[in-house]
């Protein structure tokens, strides 16, 4: 199969593409652009950060996004524009950001540096996530030498840089007309449908196909599991899958919406949900990883599902046989098993907007605040009327084989006064809801203890206590 993309404004066409080869390996070992580094080959260190540019739906505007080239499959480049660290200097003259970093001690060993350059460059040109603070933009970039200060200072010191994307958009529009619909390499097949109908048809014909959205999970099957994936259906080009529709009742998100794109809408639903999204992966992961993928892979420690379940989200699946809509919690059947029938795909998610008086509380607990996976993620949605809890939806990740509701705890709260005694009885009921396991992210004891404490945290917050160390300032003032 072949792939065409735009590199520094020039169209590059590559043939004989192995669909599970990565963009990083192509850059390093075929194109010999070795500025982009492999630090981990699993999307966790950001040394391979590049910028991908694509037209928005409607093709009137375009957007750059930072991504981890180490776990993106080469066909995902098709029809897109690519910038690497080598793209920035013009005639040997460093870009102002690069010059600032060079003068500012932003590099020591230099191995992570190209990744930081690309993340920060994205921020200067208005790429996805550009409105985030610098520390959030580079949360997916690890540096082991500098302690980050000179990198953050460089990022803060550089304002917007101008970039004329008109030629890129023209070229992208031209390429869109001849986009690759898929191809074959040895025993591997890659499909890139453009319409929901084509997608449904492909999945009906290939029920065993692996659906690829952002590849932030499946990429590791290849780079770490060394697996061969035979049939892949890439949904990134399917019309409508990236739609976000907000109204008074709630938000509808296409399954292909990357987390980064949903961040603002989630924040508007509730600030806790926005904060949760901020802490899902690094920006590169949120730029690739999708809402649908985070749900469809069924991880018991996926960050989105507990919060979405507590908020009462509904999931819609689609196939040639039609649509099914279900409460999100019903989708998760057991560890590694979801209620997705052969030929079905996750089409969209609807999240109702919480009522202003609802008490919403979402907490993610992990060893590290940024770019980590939950030990426990707890989400609470309580409706209190006249001092009584009339409705409670409580869901946890990390406490069971699937993200799921704490039904015993909910039952212990509903109908009771919103009072410390009720919270105390809720924590007792909660202990009966789950038998968490001990694993690398936490012991069963810790999980059970903090799950209960998160209910207390909700209570203390309702009493006006500060509840997060993240909000504190030092006594230096």
């Amino acid at each position, binding site marked *: 199969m072949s792939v065409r993309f735009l590199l520094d404004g020039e169209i590059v066409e590559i043939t004989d593409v192995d669909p599970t080869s990565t963009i990083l390996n192509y850059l390093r070992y075929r194109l010999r652009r070795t500025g982009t580094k492999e630090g981990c080959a699993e999307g966790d260190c950001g040394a391979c950060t590049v910028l991908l540019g694509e037209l928005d739906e409607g093709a009137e505007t375009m957007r750059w996004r930072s991504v981890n080239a180490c776990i993106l499959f080469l066909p995902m480049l098709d029809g897109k524009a690519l910038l690497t660290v080598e793209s920035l200097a013009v005639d040997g003259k460093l870009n102002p950001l690069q010059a600032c970093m060079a003068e500012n001690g932003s590099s020591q060993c230099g*191995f992570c540096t190209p990744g930081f350059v690309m993340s920060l460059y994205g921020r200067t040109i208005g790429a996805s996530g550009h409105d985030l603070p610098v520390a959030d933009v580079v949360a997916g970039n690890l540096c082991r030498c500098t302690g980050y200060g000179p990198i953050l200072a460089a990022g803060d010191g550089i304002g917007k840089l101008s970039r004329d994307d008109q030629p890129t958009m023209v070229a992208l529009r031209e390429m869109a007309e001849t986009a690759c619909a898929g191809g074959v390499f040895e025993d591997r097949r890659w499909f890139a449908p453009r319409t929901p109908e084509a997608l449904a048809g492909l999945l009906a014909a290939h029920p065993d196909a692996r659906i690829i959205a952002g590849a932030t999970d499946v990429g590791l099957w290849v780079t770490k599991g060394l697996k061969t994936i035979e049939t892949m259906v890439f949904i990134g080009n399917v019309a409508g899958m990236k739609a976000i529709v907000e109204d008074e009742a709630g938000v509808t998100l296409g399954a292909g919406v990357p987390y980064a794109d949903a961040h603002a809408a989630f924040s508007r639903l509730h600030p806790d949900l926005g904060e949760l999204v901020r802490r899902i992966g690094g920006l590169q992961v949120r730029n690739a990883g999708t809402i649908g993928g985070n749900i469809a892979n069924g991880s018991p420690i996926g960050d989105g599902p507990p919060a979405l379940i507590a908020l009462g989200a509904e999931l819609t699946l689609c196939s040639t046989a039609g649509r099914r809509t279900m409460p999100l919690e019903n989708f998760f059947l057991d560890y590694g098993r979801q209620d997705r029938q052969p030929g079905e795909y996750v089409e969209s998610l609807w999240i109702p907007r919480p009522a202003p008086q609802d008490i919403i509380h979402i907490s993610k607990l992990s060893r590290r605040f940024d770019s980590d996976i939950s030990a426990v993620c707890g989400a609470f949605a309580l409706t209190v009327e006249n001092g009584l809890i009339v409705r409670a939806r409580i869901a946890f990740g990390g406490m069971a084989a699937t993200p799921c509701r704490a039904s015993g705890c909910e039952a212990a709260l509903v109908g009771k006064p919103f009072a410390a005694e009720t919270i105390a009885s809720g924590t007792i009921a909660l202990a009966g809801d789950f038998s968490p396991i001990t694993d690398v992210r936490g012991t069963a004891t810790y999980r059970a203890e903090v799950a209960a404490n998160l209910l207390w945290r909700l209570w203390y917050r309702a009493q006006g206590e500060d509840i997060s160390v993240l909000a504190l300032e030092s006594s230096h003032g």
Partner: protein
Amino acid sequence: MAECDPALRIAAKPSNAHDSARLHVSGAAGYVDDGAEPIDMLHLAFGQSEEAHARIAHMDLSAVRAAQGVVAVFTAADIPGANDVSPVAKDDRLLADGEVMCVGQALFLVVATSQRAARQAARLARISYEPRAACLTIAEARASSSFIEPTQRMARGDARAALSAAAHRVSGGFDIGGQDHFYLEGQIAIATPGEDGQVHILSSTQHPSEIQHLVAAMLNLSSADVTVEVRRMGGAFGGKETQAALFAAAAALAAHLTGRPTKFRCDRDDDMIITGKRHDFRIDYDVGFDDQGHILGLQLRLASRCGATVDLSPAINDRAMFHVDNCYWLPDIEIVSERLKTHTVSNTAFRGFGGPQGMLAIERIMDEVAAFLGRDPLDVRISNLYGPGRNVTPYDMVVADNIAPEIIARLRREGRYDERAASIEAFNAGSAILKKAIALTPVKFGISFTTTHLNQAGALVHVYADGSIQINHGGTEMGQGLYIKVAQVVADVFAVPVSQVRITATRTDKVPNTSATAASSGADLNGMAAHNAAMTIRDRLTAFLAQTFACAESEVAFAADGVVAGKEKLSFADLARRAHMGRISLSATGYYATPGIAYDRSTHKGRPFYYFAYGAALAEVAVDILTGEHRVLAVDIVHDVGRSLNPAIDLGQIEGAFIQGQGWLTTEELMFDAKGRLLTHSPATYKIPTASDRPRHFRISLWQDENLEPTIHRSKAVGEPPFSLANCVFSAIGRAIAAISPEKRSLPPLNAPATPENILRAVRGYRD
């Protein structure tokens, strides 16, 4: 010695950026993996042990050999010479020979046409093991008296009697976790066969000479047949001091046996499983003290998990003992150091080399004493500092350069310690869930390899006839800015801009028999060696000028605007050209050996260190007692760099070391399962700090008084000492937990790292 001429320092601006900064930011800095691959290059992967301790009954490698892309599979039987990649004890096998000692140990070497093919094939082996009893933890190894060397004892006076006589006595203990280096560039080597059996190795290593020697012995070659080269590493931190040899030797073996260039680029997860880490420790103490908190007697046991082989563990554990005193006078003391052999990966050098664990132990004891007496921990620390009449270390070295009291006083004042401690007390009184604390801890770090013969270095300086200068030395560049510091030293000698000095890759064929770039010694040793080489050339030029222009040598001066000889003035380039025409040698080697150090390991007495580097740090943290989450809110540092060779580079070292130390004590947790398998073998599960973990308030002041000892330009080493500044974070977290019961006179049972789970456990333990 190399005194800095202030006039010359004008020529080379001290705060030059890192020599490769512009290459780093443009992606043009070349690392081992960045060169073009020859079309016949082969790629390597290890088959790894799945057992912690076992005899290998049988290795069925038929499926490996038959796998697509596989060119060859080698086992220990294929090694022509010594099957050894160890630094000292000759006990690290390149490929397992009958027995495996830890999970991940290399069993066989797959040689294939691609990295992926090699890795895939390596998983196809069918290995029959006869498992043997494995001890995995410090406790298990202690129970079965499993040691890599005899337990060491460092003592002075009569600790037992002093403990009995002391007014107060407290005993306690805690665990200190290990740490993965997490250099961003993983282990990698390329070996290229040369003519007549020679081999050239590009390796990401801190110790090219050691790899040269090991590869020569492994292939039955002479050292002269093996050349090892490294231009730069993508981070190392001690993890490429001995650990790079395994990969380089594997590449050399495959190149030797196949006659083709080979590359071993280790996958991140494999790297984390296969390579050694910082030692984890169990600390137990019994301390006696008076009403003011003066420590009178201390019995301390340091037990560390060394892993399956010796590696550098003896020296690392020695350094832990050397740093138990930190900045404190401990009159009657007994330190017992157990070096435990376990069936886990052999632990190795990591920035600080045991020192941080020793210092953390005594800081914990200071906190313990303060808690017992209900006194401010800083006051207890200050009352125990070395001072006149109480300035001899437990190993009998006089602390001649003690500036800790002044550094602490300055930090206390500038960091507003007392004022903030009061405001934090008020905050805690009004906050049920979030508790804050501050802590100020000092650092005194001994500079020199404690293995005395390692304290030597060589350099090679060429002046070309156009006036450009090329330097080479035995030190390696891992990001620490060694190359630019040495380049500045050389530029200073000739009073030329540093841009006129070309820094070249470290190679064993240019400077032989080098020590590892380790122990923070890089600039001290190589800077002085390069200075000496440059001075040799300058002396020749001075004599040439005096003769040419008929003036006295004292009338020759090298200055930023040119070289003066009597009444003549000429550019350095002109001088170089004339000297070449005048048949003056413009190339010289330089050599340096640290003077004045001597240490008797059998008694643990002597002067192992040339001097000490000092510092102090003040951290403010907040802890959430419901979840165990914490945040470092502010850090203030005063750190001693002597008369800095390059303040910008030094500041970078201090900040980077602090954050690395903070990670060690907070988010970075190594976990093994009951079979000895590392569970945290990727950045998905092993969490080094991210940008947001850096406290928003982070202020570093340099203490720039000149070194008492005549080091290069009276500077001080800076690589390792600031790592232990982060001990204040651990102290502060403990103190914040203690704020839940201010009336208690004890410490929360906190272990390092202070993960949310460990903090919550300490909260629970403190309440009970």
